[in-house]
């Protein structure tokens, strides 16, 4: 069974992102056979250089035909893995998908064109990546043909980007690769036009990325979804968000702050002595008294390390409603199965998600498709985790009258 790895491709469309994606799909034989043939036939008329316009059209068509669920995912395979490129046509879409979407990127590809080099664009891309806490980064410097495959130029851009990333508190990239996506130089094929480069091709570099650790090895997080009474027994039901749960395990409920012991894991039609992240299960506790005070919204965790239990929540929020958010407004927050009412204390670094411009560092409202760092004071405690650690308890929605108006992630 092959590994899967999901990464985001960040970069301005003019810098050749579409062509790069087309190239990756074509070189790895990841297009349907008739599309592969189309690209091949087009290449015959193009001096042997494949034309990737077809590929992007095909992807667009797929995207349109697909039902809402898997929005912007592009698949390709190498010998080692199945890759998913989480793509988005624009920044707005990208930010929204990343914050509200389900799939978490395990790495990012940052694309920069060699002749244009570091621009404001790149600055903002770096900011976005830091926002989302993506740790593994591959930098790809494209269109090397337009700068005559000049090593100096490559080294200069590499230095500039690394410095800029540092400014955002990001780690240096795993590698920086000079490529030409149209000609395929250093994408799958080792280029013979850049002898001064002795690093890996992009495909090799991708194969070097580490997949995110499996959720089942993470911290235990079981958000209580409901409590059923069956034949005199009380059963806590829910889906294990993270970690592994075993019969006899000692757990602690947050925000309640109570400990308990798992008597057994209940599943219909089977017996289980262990459950892993992702499974929907029932839990019966050892002591009847342990059920005191437990309700939907509590999260069962391992005894240590303790999760964060928040009363004041500072998080990145993407607003998605025509009616703007106002400072001091009261709004509902729902994280996993927990729901609390919050007051909006501060709206900081209000940003236009299309241009990535900061509109105001300290704002009074937040409009549709804008992103900001919100400080929310809740009327209760919420058990949360940094988004990179546990996605379920690291993300939340904001609601007005039971309508979802925003999505947010905690750092």
């Amino acid at each position, binding site marked *: 069974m092959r590994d899967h790895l999901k990464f985001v491709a960040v970069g301005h469309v003019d810098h050749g992102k579409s062509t790069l994606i087309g190239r990756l799909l074509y070189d790895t034989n990841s297009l349907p056979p*008739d599309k592969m043939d189309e690209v091949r036939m087009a290449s015959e008329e193009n001096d042997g250089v494949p034309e990737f316009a077809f590929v992007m059209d095909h992807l667009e068509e797929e995207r349109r035909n697909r039902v809402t669920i898997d929005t912007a995912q592009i698949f390709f395979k190498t010998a080692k893995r199945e890759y998913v490129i989480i793509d988005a046509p624009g920044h707005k879409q990208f930010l929204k998908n990343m914050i509200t979407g389900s799939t978490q990127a395990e790495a990012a590809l940052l694309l920069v064109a060699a002749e244009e080099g570091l621009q404001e664009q790149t600055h903002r891309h770096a900011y976005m990546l830091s926002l989302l806490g993506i740790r593994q980064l591959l930098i790809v410097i494209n269109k090397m043909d337009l700068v005559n495959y000049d090593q100096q130029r490559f080294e200069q851009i590499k230095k500039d980007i690394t410095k800029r990333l540092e400014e955002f508190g990001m780690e240096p990239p795993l590698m920086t690769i000079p490529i030409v996506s149209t000609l395929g130089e250093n994408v799958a094929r080792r280029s013979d036009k850049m002898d001064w480069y002795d690093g890996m091709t992009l495909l090799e570099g991708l194969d070097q990325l580490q997949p995110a650790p499996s959720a089942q090895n993470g911290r235990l997080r079981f958000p209580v979804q409901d409590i059923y009474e069956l034949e005199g027994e009380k059963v806590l039901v829910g889906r294990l968000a993270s970690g592994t749960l075993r019969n006899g395990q000692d757990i602690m409920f947050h925000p309640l702050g109570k400990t308990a012991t798992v008597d057994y894991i209940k599943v219909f039609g089977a017996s289980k002595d262990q459950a892993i992240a992702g499974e929907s299960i029932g839990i019966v506790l050892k002591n009847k008294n342990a059920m005191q005070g437990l309700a939907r919204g509590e999260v069962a965790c391992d005894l240590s390390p303790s999760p964060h239990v928040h009363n004041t929540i500072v998080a990145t929020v993407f607003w998605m409603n025509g009616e703007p958010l106002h400072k001091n407004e009261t709004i509902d927050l729902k994280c996993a199965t927990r729901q609390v009412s919050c007051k909006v204390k501060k709206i900081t670094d209000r940003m236009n998600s299309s241009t990535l411009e900061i509109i105001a560092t300290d704002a009074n409202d937040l409009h549709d498709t804008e992103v900001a760092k919100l400080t929310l004071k809740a009327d209760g405690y919420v058990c949360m985790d940094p988004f990179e650690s546990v996605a379920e308890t690291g993300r939340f929605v904001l609601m007005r009258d039971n309508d979802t108006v925003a999505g947010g992630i905690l750092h």
Partner: protein
Amino acid sequence: MDKLDELESQSIYIIREAYYHYKKLAMLWSIGKDSSTMVWLVRKAFFGKVPFPALHIDTSYKFPQMYKFRDEYSRKWGLDLVITRNEKALAAGMTCEKKLECCTALKTEALKIAIAKHGFDALLLGIRRDEHGIRAKERVFSPRDEEFKWNYQDQPPELWDQFKSQAEEQTHIRVHPLLGWTELDIWKYIRREQIPITELYFAKNGKRYRSIGCTTCCNPVDSNAATIDDMINELETTTTSERAGRAQDKEDTYTMQKLRALGYM
């Protein structure tokens, strides 16, 4: 956890969410493979004791095998079976000459009758994502809902389809626990769990029903798939596109010519 485990867990999660929010819940059971799978999942979600009714919309034109199956399994599974029909329309002799009219009268109206009678505020339906295009016209999405279509896999289903019908009708919420499943997933799950399925799905005399509903509107397709394994095999090979088939023919011609020249044929 393999793909089926993941789908199963998500669906159970969605079902339990629906029950938490809407106590007057009912599940629509058409006796077909999708809704029967959903009923199976609902049983799992509630540990065998389903606390709400299974609603069967009876057009009276269903296959006799379906009625038999329904009665047998609602008993076996201890389901609270509610059968609803548009008696008025049937008495007036409604048949399928005009297909759309028939479906509206016998199905949609019957559903409204049931909702009015029992006060259901939410319904579980076994609609799958790869059927979405066909069923689209039965649902109404507000534009805002469309925008916030979150991935069911990792998020609680914040947004369920709001079926806002005409003024005189009741508003209710529709929940789709099977949205992330494909037809192939359903069959693989049926095989894995050994879920009982009506025999109409299996080939007899070179034909089988790919979907079942009323005898008047359902037509069989050519097939030799007599077992679930055959079915899965058939689905897996027909999903590899026809486009690949044409390309293969060209290649085969080339290969044949070459082998002939070399004396291998």
